[in-house]
Structure formats: structure tokens, C-alpha cells
């Protein structure tokens, strides 16, 4: 039986918990770990498992639904959507993403990762996108 996808949050992180949930569900979906039609745990279930307030999970699910990653309806479980690919972003937005990547790479180097290691990690991620 394949291991079920996991989510990991850090209460001590500067990133709000609901944002951590959004980021990780989005990442799992993009990587194909979560597929269209997969049922997510209920708000109550995930809140109990993570030991956080219901509203935090509900807010994360609302954000994911607004972004089109999941569909939520009253009385039905949250499901991963078959998300239509949006139109490619403008050049300015691409530049914005590039800036964020540069900041992240700088942070990785500041944490002691060598340029070769960072390069390998980025290449592995890029290979994953082709699957």
C-alpha cells in the first residue's frame, strides 16, 4: 500500500500556519502526489490531526478553493480539482518569480548549501516537472 501523502507544519515558523497548509497542498498537487478527484481530510479531521484551530484549516481550504486547486461544498468532502492551466503570466510577473527564486537561493547559500548542491536540487525539481 503506498504511503499516504503527509503534511508538515511548523508552529514556530514566521509563515502563518494556514499559508503552510496552502503551500504544501499546492506543492503536492503540482508534483502529482495528490491527483484530481483525491479526497482531502475534512476540516475537522485535519484540525484534530494537526492540533490547530478549525478556522485555520477552513481558511486554508477556502484559499485553495479560490486558487482553483480544490473544490469545497457544504456537506461534501473537499476534493482535488482538475485544474485548468491558466494563461502564461506577463513578463513582469515572471520577473517577480525569478526574484523570489533568487532570494530563496541566497537563503539556501546563507544556510551553508554549496552552489553545486543547490544546482542539483533545482535540476531534480525541474526534472520532476517533466513527469
Amino acid at each position: 500500500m503506498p504511503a499516504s501523502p503527509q503534511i508538515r507544519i511548523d508552529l514556530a515558523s514566521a509563515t502563518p500556519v494556514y499559508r503552510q497548509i496552502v503551500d504544501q497542498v499546492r506543492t503536492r498537487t503540482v508534483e502529482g502526489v495528490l491527483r484530481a478527484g483525491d479526497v482531502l481530510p475534512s476540516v475537522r479531521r485535519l484540525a484534530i490531526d494537526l492540533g490547530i484551530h478549525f478556522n485555520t484549516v477552513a481558511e486554508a481550504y477556502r484559499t485553495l478553493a479560490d486558487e482553483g486547486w480544490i473544490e469545497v461544498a457544504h456537506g461534501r468532502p473537499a476534493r482535488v480539482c482538475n485544474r485548468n492551466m491558466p494563461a502564461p503570466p506577463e513578463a513582469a510577473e515572471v520577473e517577480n518569480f525569478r526574484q523570489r527564486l533568487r532570494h530563496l537561493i541566497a537563503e539556501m547559500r546563507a544556510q551553508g548549501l554549496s552552489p553545486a548542491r543547490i544546482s542539483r536540487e533545482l535540476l531534480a525539481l525541474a526534472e520532476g516537472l517533466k513527469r
Partner: protein
Amino acid sequence: MIYPIISYSLVFILVGGVQAALPAYGGRTIFFSVTVPERFRETAEARSILRGFRRLILLWTIAAEALALATIYTGVPWFLLAAILVVGAGTVGAYARARKQTRQFSVAPSAERTASLAAQSDGLRGSYFILAAAAAPFIAAALFAGSRWDQISDTVALSTAFGVSGSVDVVLLLLALAILHGSRRGSPMRSVNLTVLVAFMLVNSVAPATFIALQWMKPSEQFWGQAFSFGELLFLAGMIVWGLRKGSQLRHSRDTTPDECWKLGQFYYNPQDPALLVEHRIGLGYSPNFARPLSWIAITALFVLPVLAIVCLVIANM
């Protein structure tokens, strides 16, 4: 009267033994419900705290045994009630004292939490089937034994006396459902706790029914009643030991509940935590989250109201 008291006496010894052994069965980073550094258990301070705790448990167990003996010799039932109170309060007090001593060595628990993103799978596939399989003979045996309740002699004590009358059976079933729905998934201790609970359900239901059947075959032999009670007690003790040993192998430093939420080290109160039940930091079982109103409603309905009813009945008959 003498057989129930002997049974209580055995229970006091069992409770004392389990309490004395319990601190050895916690996670590596939990000591008397306090989050401690990884190798704290091996330090001289930890060993000294543990010795002090075990001495107090021994003291309270001896006191309870003396009160149980006093009940046999004087015939005054209040001594037995006093013995139960001594064991209960003494254990809680000893634990709270040890916890207070440990808190000076505490460290912050991990702020990381993990959970499954799968809706159903929690490592307990077939859990409802297991529960149903346990509940079916449990209900059938309860109905069978309940209809022949007057045939159970007072030589059969403990779980039989509590078991088939309905109250505790319902508690166990509700508890199993509450664990499935109101506690965190993903912990390896979850299946151990449920297995022990299902074993208790089976013993509390099938065992009395079997005993009644045995009594029909040998109605005059009191020996079977005593042997049966002892066998039940032994089986339950065996299940607890199995659960504790299994738990000590499985339990890692996954407990991320804040130390300050464990009142007296045993009672969990965390308004930020939506869980209804949380795993005990040591040993087996769950603690209700006393910050959830449903916990109070359940405790009132299942324990406080029956105790009040018994007290009222006793006062009315005085």
C-alpha cells in the same frame, strides 16, 4: 462480602504495580508528563525522582491494603471507600510531586506537526469491522448474561460485576467510537490502545456469559467462580503489560502537546486543540481534553450522574 474485597485488594496491588512501572514506559523525551532532553532518563536526577515516586506509590498501596483488611475484620464498608480514595488521591499526588521535580529540567516540545492528507487511511484499515466484530458477541453475551443475572453468584467479582449490567459496556463502546472520531490519527499507539480496548470489551461480555454456562454444568462449585475471576484479572493484566511493552517500542518523541496543558501531569486542558481525546504521555489510553465542552458532557453523563444516583440511593436507605 469477602470475595469482592479480596478482588479490590488484588486491584490495589495491580494498580500500584502498574503505576510504579508506568514512568519507564513513556517516550524518550517525556518524563512524568514533562518534555525533557533525549537522554534525561539516564541521569542521576531522573533516577532519584523515579525512586521517590515509587516509594510513595508503595506507601499508598500498603495503606489501601490495610484499609481493605480493616473492612474484612470490622465489616465497615466505608473503610473500602477510604482505601479507594487513598489509592486514587495518593497516586495523583505522587505523580504531581514527581512532575514538579522534573519541570526544572524541561525543554520546549517540538513545534512541528505532521498529518496525513488522505481522508480515510489512518493505519487502521478495517477498524470499523474490528469494532463491529467485537461489539456483536459483546452485545449478544451482554443480553444473554443480563437475562440470567440472578444466576451469577457473588463469588464472581470485578469485571463481571461491572460488565454486563450495561453501564461500563456502553462506556467502552462509546470510548472506542470517540477514539476513532475525536483523537489524532497517525500515531502508532492508536492501534495498540484500540486493541486493548476491544480485548476489555470482549472480556467484559463474553467472559460472564461463559461463566454462566460453566455454572450450569457445575452449579455448586464456588471454586470455579474464584478461578474465573482470577483468570479474567490475569488476562486483563496481561493485556495491559502487552500494551505497555508494545507502546514502549512504538512510541517516539511525537508528542507535541504543550507541557503546561497537562494539569497535575494527567489532565489535559488545551482550548487551542480541537481533539476530544489525546494520548496519555505515558502508558496506555487517552485523556479527555477538558477544554472541550463535549468532554464535560460525556463525563457528567457517564460518571458523575451514576455516582450521584448511587450516593442518593445510599442516603435514602440509611
